[in-house]
C-alpha cells in the first residue's frame, strides 16, 4: 500500500457534489423570519457605536469649554434638560450609591450651568441630552436582548461617562468662580 496521492485526492475532492438537496423543505422556517417585520436597524452594534460617538462628542464639548475659558453673564438655565431614570432593560437597576451620586450631580447641574456662558451652557446641555438619549437607546436594546453582556457593559460605561461629564461641569464652574474671585 502506498501513500495516497495528493493529486488523486484533490481530483476526488473536486468530484464531490457541491450542491446537495436538504432532506426536508427548509423554507417554512425561513419564511417565519422573512414575513416578520424587518429587524430594526438599531442593533446592539449600532447602540455601541452611537454611544461611543456621543461620549466622544460630550467629552470634546466639555474639553473645549475647559480650554476656551469662556464665561458670561449668569442667566436662567434652559428648563428642557430633563434627566430620567432608565430601566436598564427589564432586568437591571442602577445601584443606590450610583443613583444617589447621579441625583446629587443632576440637582447641582442647573446651578453649575448657570455660571457658564449661554453658548457653553447650550453646548453642554445639548451633549448631555444626546448622551442621555444614547443611554435610553442602549436601555431599549437591552430590553430586546437582556443577556447581551456587551450592551450591559456599554450601558454602565455610558452612565459612568455621564457622571464624569456632570462632575467635569462642576469642576469647570468652580474654576470659573475662582477666576471671578481673583
Amino acid at each position: 500500500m502506498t501513500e495516497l496521492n495528493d493529486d488523486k485526492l484533490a481530483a476526488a475532492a473536486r468530484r464531490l457534489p457541491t450542491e446537495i438537496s436538504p432532506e426536508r423543505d427548509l423554507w417554512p422556517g425561513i419564511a417565519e423570519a422573512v414575513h416578520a417585520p424587518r429587524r430594526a436597524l438599531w442593533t446592539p452594534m449600532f447602540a455601541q457605536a452611537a454611544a461611543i460617538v456621543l461620549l466622544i462628542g460630550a467629552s470634546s464639548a466639555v474639553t473645549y469649554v475647559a480650554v476656551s475659558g469662556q464665561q458670561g453673564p449668569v442667566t436662567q438655565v434652559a428648563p428642557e434638560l430633563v434627566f430620567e431614570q432608565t430601566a436598564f432593560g427589564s432586568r437591571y437597576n442602577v445601584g443606590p450609591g450610583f443613583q444617589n451620586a447621579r441625583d446629587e450631580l443632576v440637582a447641582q447641574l442647573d446651578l453649575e450651568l448657570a455660571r457658564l456662558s449661554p453658548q457653553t451652557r447650550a453646548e453642554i446641555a445639548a451633549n448631555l441630552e444626546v448622551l442621555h438619549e444614547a443611554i435610553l437607546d442602549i436601555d431599549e436594546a437591552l430590553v430586546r436582548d437582556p443577556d447581551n453582556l456587551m450592551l450591559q457593559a456599554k450601558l454602565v460605561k455610558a452612565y459612568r461617562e455621564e457622571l464624569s461629564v456632570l462632575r467635569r461641569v462642576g469642576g469647570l464652574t468652580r474654576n470659573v468662580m475662582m477666576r471671578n474671585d481673583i
Partner: protein
Amino acid sequence: MSALLTENSSDYSRTMVTATSHGAADEAAWIRRAKRSDARAFESLYRLHVDKVYGLCLRMTGNVSEAEDCTQDAFIQAWNKLQKFRGDSAFATWLHRIAVNTVLGRIRSSQRERDRIQAVADTSSTPLALGDVGELRDLSEAIDRLPAGARHVFVLHAVYGYSHKEAGSMLGIATGTSKAQLHRARRLLAQQLKQQGFEA
C-alpha cells in the same frame, strides 16, 4: 485509490438541483424585488441557491441537523442583510460567505462541535468501515471526521475551489494558515483512507 475516483451512488448525490433553468436576469430581478421586501422573490432566490448553501453547510458541519439550522440561519441573515448586497461578487458567493460565517458562529457557541471533535480524536485510530455504496461517500465521511479547522479549509479549497486567499478571508485566518490546514487535512485523509485500503 482508483476506486475512489469512480463516482458511485452516494447519499449526497441523490438530488442534484442545479437550477440552471433560471438565468442571471431572473436572479438579478429577484434580488431587486427582495430588496424591496418581496418575500416571494426571496423565496425564489432560496429555491435557486438552497442546494449550494446546504451543501456547503453540510460539508462544513458534517451533520445534517446542524447543516439544516445553518442553512436556515444563513438565509435569514441574507434576508436581513440584503440591502448591503451591492453585486460586487456573485450572489452565490455572497451567500457562501454568510453561510461560512453562520457555521463558524454556531461552532463557536456550540459545545456539540467540541464534543464531536473529541469523539473523532477518540476514534481516529479506528478504520472507517469499508463502504459498500461508493468511495466518494467514504471520502465524504473521512472529510466529516477531520478536525474543524482542517475540514473547513479542505471543503472550501479542495471541494468548492476557493483559493487559499479566499478561504482564509472567509474563515478569518491567514493564507499561510489555510495552506497549513490543507496539508494537515490531506495527511489525515490519507491516513484514514489508507486504512480503508485505498492506494495511489
